[in-house]
């Protein structure tokens, strides 16, 4: 009960504060600076009728999905290899750590030169934003495997290959899952920021257009949509992750 009521209360308090703040403003100022919630709802209905929202939404989701998938396909094997081969880790760890620490949006102009204004450049940016955290959490998972379990495995005569598949990989699953959730969050950030920077469609593109033309209510509609989508993607990922963390038997 509390678990449902408290977040609901938090959301309602946030909307009330927003509403209160906008009511403090004169109507014409409010329209530009902070439209009230009912105005935004009204605008939402209007936008969904007049704009090809499904197209924009589809573009953004496609970019996020492709960027994230590429980051997973590259990031998990890279992290596993780095954890397994110390020399490889020593060679590239510094590069990846500094890459992870910098704002990846600096690569957007380069991605536009390589891939143009359309979807591929956003996929590339989503990939670049998501991949380092997936590599580094996977690496942390491999490196932090309980040495006692490695000894048990060796004691039974396990080969390197058996050690990897029966101990290192399963022990790394919880950190990898955490890395996937963080990576998904970063992929969404990368794609939206990329669309804000330069695009022809997508939710970030819409936010940019509405901002540049002072259509604040419409812009807020899209911002809220981004928040809802991010939540709809990340909350189930958190659930899956929690299940892996506890080593619970599967609920079948």
């Amino acid at each position, binding site marked *: 009960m509390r678990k449902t009521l408290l977040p609901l209360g938090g959301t309602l308090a946030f909307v009330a504060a927003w509403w209160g703040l906008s009511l403090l403003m004169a109507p014409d100022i409010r329209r530009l600076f902070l439209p009230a919630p009912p105005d935004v709802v009204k605008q939402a209905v209007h936008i969904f009728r007049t704009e090809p929202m499904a197209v924009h939404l589809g573009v953004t989701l496609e970019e996020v999905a492709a960027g994230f998938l590429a980051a997973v396909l590259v990031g998990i094997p890279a992290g596993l290899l780095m954890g397994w081969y110390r020399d490889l880790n020593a060679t590239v760890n510094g590069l990846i750590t500094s890459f992870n620490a910098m704002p990846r949006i600096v690569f957007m102009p380069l991605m536009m030169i390589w891939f143009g204004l359309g979807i591929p450049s956003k996929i590339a940016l989503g990939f670049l934003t998501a991949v380092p955290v997936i590599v580094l959490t996977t690496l942390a998972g491999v490196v932090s495997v309980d040495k006692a379990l490695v000894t*048990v*495995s060796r*004691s*039974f*005569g396990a080969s390197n290959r058996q050690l990897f598949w*029966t101990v290192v990989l*399963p022990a790394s699953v919880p950190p990898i899952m955490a890395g996937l959730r963080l990576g998904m969050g970063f992929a969404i950030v990368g794609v939206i920021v990329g669309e804000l920077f330069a695009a022809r469609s997508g939710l970030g593109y819409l936010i940019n257009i509405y901002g540049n033309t002072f259509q604040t209510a419409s812009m807020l509609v899209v911002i809220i949509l981004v928040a809802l989508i991010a939540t709809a993607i990340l909350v189930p990922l958190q659930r899956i992750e929690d299940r892996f963390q506890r*080593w619970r038997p599967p609920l079948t």
Partner: protein
Amino acid sequence: MADAQAKLRVERLSHGFAGPEPGSHLRVLDSVDFVASPGEFIALVGPSGCGKSTLLNLVDGLLQPAAGRVLVDGREVSGPGSDRAMVFQAASLFPWRTVLRNITYGLEIQGVDGGRAVRRAREMIELVGLKGFEQFYPYSISGGMAQRVNLARALAVDPEILLMDEPFAALDAHTREAMQAELLRIWGATGKTILFVTHQIEEAVFLADRVLVLTARPATVKLSVNVDLGRPRDLTVKRTPEFIRYEECIWQSVRAEVRQI
């Protein structure tokens, strides 16, 4: 030279590790010699840090000796093998595997097919008294049960020699006594040769046919005591004068070593 009666022969075994300062060397074992006959239960006691665990790791083949050798049935040990299995001090169960799948682990590593591995694991579960807990995960069982799984996992591969590294040290006194009695029952049922490291003299005397006292580091065998308390033993033997005499004798011997540290 080859002794037909020896299951395990440890010959002039020496080992050391790099010390804390660069170039320094810590001598841990110094020419350890002993022989275990088939089915014999040998306990190793000695001051803490004297190298008992290193000795077990050498016999298991997890470490390579600096000098000397370990022979099982006359064959020199060069690495881990299915004729030996270790029961570790921390139960070290795989947290993502159920009790049953923890016990099948060694069999899977040795390439035993799934169905046979599971049948074997179920026998071991029966033997160590864990029936009904097959599908439990390690986080949900007690320390005593975890050590039963640890023991069953080692027994599952049907080793000839069981190496036990203070397996009951982390258990409370009552559980420890229960596990000691359990171990004797299982040993009686399986006839394994056991090398049992402990720092508890009482435990060593209760369990073993023979107690080897190791010196302080670098360890060597100082004293070998045959424990003639008859079999089967139950916990009441711990109250008899003979038992206490054995305990006293070994305690004096270990204490002299502890003073030197």
